[in-house]
């Protein structure tokens, strides 16, 4: 068993030793130093201590024959055959990793009447698509979905498996990882691969203040979940390639203790807290009518509109849409502040946002300290020009 041992002969000042641990895991009781259950095996004590008091004893790790596990598999997440964009992004990443190690890329798709959608995957350069098409798989239910996943892994033995961080993915991936007693790293933001097929997984920890680099060195398969919009989807090719393999599974394995009684469309979320994109109007917006251009930009970006305290006080926006200490805290992927100066109370409610763009005429505005991109300019000129760009960009696409 891997453990940390205290070399009592080398202890000079027990109190100093106790203080080495930020988790309070070193006890000094009745003249005796010991490690308690608060120990996180972070080995910080080994790093900090200079007298050789601590010793780390490595145990034998389990052995896995990595040559038996080959390929990178992507779980295809979909709603009634409509494949989620995150799946294509994962295919793109899987192909990149596979190219480095000379492994094939597989897709696993399960559901009912999904053959046509599965065929679409063949336009993205994957080597083989495995489909399980059963009435019992029409709706997501954990036991049959896990059983199918297990069947696929036993048959194909992929080295790495990438799953989208969707509602289904976050429920299914841990279940199947536990079945194989293997590791799963959630919400990876960076993935790379070693020549020995170890997956380098990097994810934010502790609310994003720290990045952790994680490996699953002695177990296969290695599971990682990744959220939407982290990686890039490959271009769809005109021609199709690869094999489509229909798989069968014993019907007894598709039994479930879950009955899906109803599926109801969800009333659309209109709150700002869950929005991925937010456009904020500040005092730079002069008249109620001018909110229209903010609304139009928001619509084009599929964004929610929010306001600063002073804008809310004008009554042009619902108070539920106020950002700041006296309003709501938001953490969208993109926030564009329009004519917002950036008072501390406002910034406190939005500075966790992934990407902050600020438009303001005053170059000295405090908002520019917090923005990733500060645009010195007049919202009355820039927003209409941006709207025009987006609209013509859309025409080019369609």
């Amino acid at each position, binding site marked *: 068993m891997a453990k940390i041992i205290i070399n009592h002969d080398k202890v000079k000042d027990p109190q100093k030793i106790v203080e080495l641990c930020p*988790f309070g895991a070193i006890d000094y009781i009745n003249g005796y130093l010991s490690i308690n259950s608060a120990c996180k*095996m972070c080995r910080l004590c080994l790093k900090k201590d200079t007298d050789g008091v601590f010793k780390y004893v490595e145990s034998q790790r389990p052995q896995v024959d990595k040559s038996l596990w080959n390929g990178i598999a992507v779980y295809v997440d979909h709603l009634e055959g409509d494949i989620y964009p995150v799946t294509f992004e994962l295919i793109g990443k899987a192909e990149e990793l596979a190219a480095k190690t000379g492994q094939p890329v597989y897709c696993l798709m399960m559901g009912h009447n999904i053959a046509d959608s599965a065929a679409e995957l063949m336009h993205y350069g994957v080597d083989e698509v495995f489909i399980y098409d059963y009435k019992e798989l029409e709706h997501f239910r*954990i036991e049959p979905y896990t059983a199918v996943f297990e069947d696929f892994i036993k048959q194909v033995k992929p080295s790495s498996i990438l799953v989208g961080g969707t509602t289904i993915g976050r429920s299914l991936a841990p*279940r199947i990882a536990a079945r194989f007693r293997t590791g799963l790293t959630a919400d990876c933001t960076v993935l790379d691969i070693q020549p020995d097929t170890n997956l380098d997984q990097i994810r934010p920890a502790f*609310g994003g203040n720290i990045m952790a680099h994680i490996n699953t060195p002695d177990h296969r398969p290695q599971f990682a979940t990744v959220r939407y919009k982290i990686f890039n989807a490959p271009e769809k090719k005109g021609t199709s390639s690869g094999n489509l393999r229909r798989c069968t599974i014993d019907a007894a394995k598709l039994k479930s203790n879950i*009955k899906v009684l109803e599926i109801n469309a969800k009333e659309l979320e209109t709150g700002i807290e869950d929005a991925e994109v937010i456009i904020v109007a500040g005092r730079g917006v002069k008249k109620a009518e001018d909110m229209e251009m903010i609304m139009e930009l928001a619509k084009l970006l599929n964004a929610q509109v929010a306001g600063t305290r002073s804008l809310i006080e004008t009554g042009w926006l619902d108070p539920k849409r106020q950002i700041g200490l006296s309003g709501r805290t938001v953490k969208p992927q993109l926030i564009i502040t329009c004519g917002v100066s950036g008072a501390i109370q406002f910034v406190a409610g939005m500075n966790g946002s992934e990407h902050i763009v600020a438009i303001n005429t005053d170059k000295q505005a405090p908002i520019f300290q917090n923005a990733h991109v500060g645009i010195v300019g007049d919202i009355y000129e820039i927003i209409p020009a941006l709207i025009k*760009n987006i609209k013509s*960009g859309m025409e080019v696409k369609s």
Partner: protein
Amino acid sequence: MKITVCIKQVPGTSEVEVDEKTGVLKRDGIDSKMNPYDLFALESAIRIKQQFATEVTAITMGPPQAEEIIREAYMMGADDGVILSDRRFAGSDVLATAYTLSQGIARDGIPDLIICGKQTTDGDTAQVGPEIAEFLNIPHVADVRKIIDLTSEHIKVEMDMPQTVEVVEVKLPALITVAKDINEPRLPSFKLKLASAGRPVKRLSLDDFSDQDEMNYGLNGSPTQVIKIFPPPANDDHEIWEGSTTELAGRLFEQLSEKKFLQR
């Protein structure tokens, strides 16, 4: 009916910094609290208790200090509390944590219902609940946003999906993870604080489990290994753009499209 709620003590703040030189966490003092998501799980269990004869057990894995959150659970209305505490659990990843909890939960037989918060604020993985269900070989439903009905045989819940809400009926025993905002958690009650002051908190270690193989716990039982931790790429790139309107709008358009905000 027996309900077990899994709770966790987490750092009281997310303001954790990394020492750039050593790559280790800087944590001054150990200010901690109950994982906020777990309050919704506890509240769900206590609401059930108000309707049916139910025994609610709160269970946690952690150091002896984690007793504080069990006491807090008592003050909300939990009947029983268990801490799984053992130096041999140190360094547990998701798999080892879920396995340890499953051993603790099943020790006196699998309860009718297990409720977990959707995720924790420190690990943020949302994986422990489903993994516990797998180890106990019972069905689970994640992201429950409403408990509609409960009988001695079944629980009927609303599951939150990206575009839909599914009403599902699950045969007990089962595990659910509940979404934030499923209810409004009550505040700890002073009356219950007094009433539960002398109530013991059961402490279990590896020696109390049915599986006593040390290789299944702690660092040994953890397939994932943290190679290193490091600060995120510095976010001090405050770019300032100046120029003509056409130029600025064009640049912003290009950046938004590059960052995929114009996809749909």
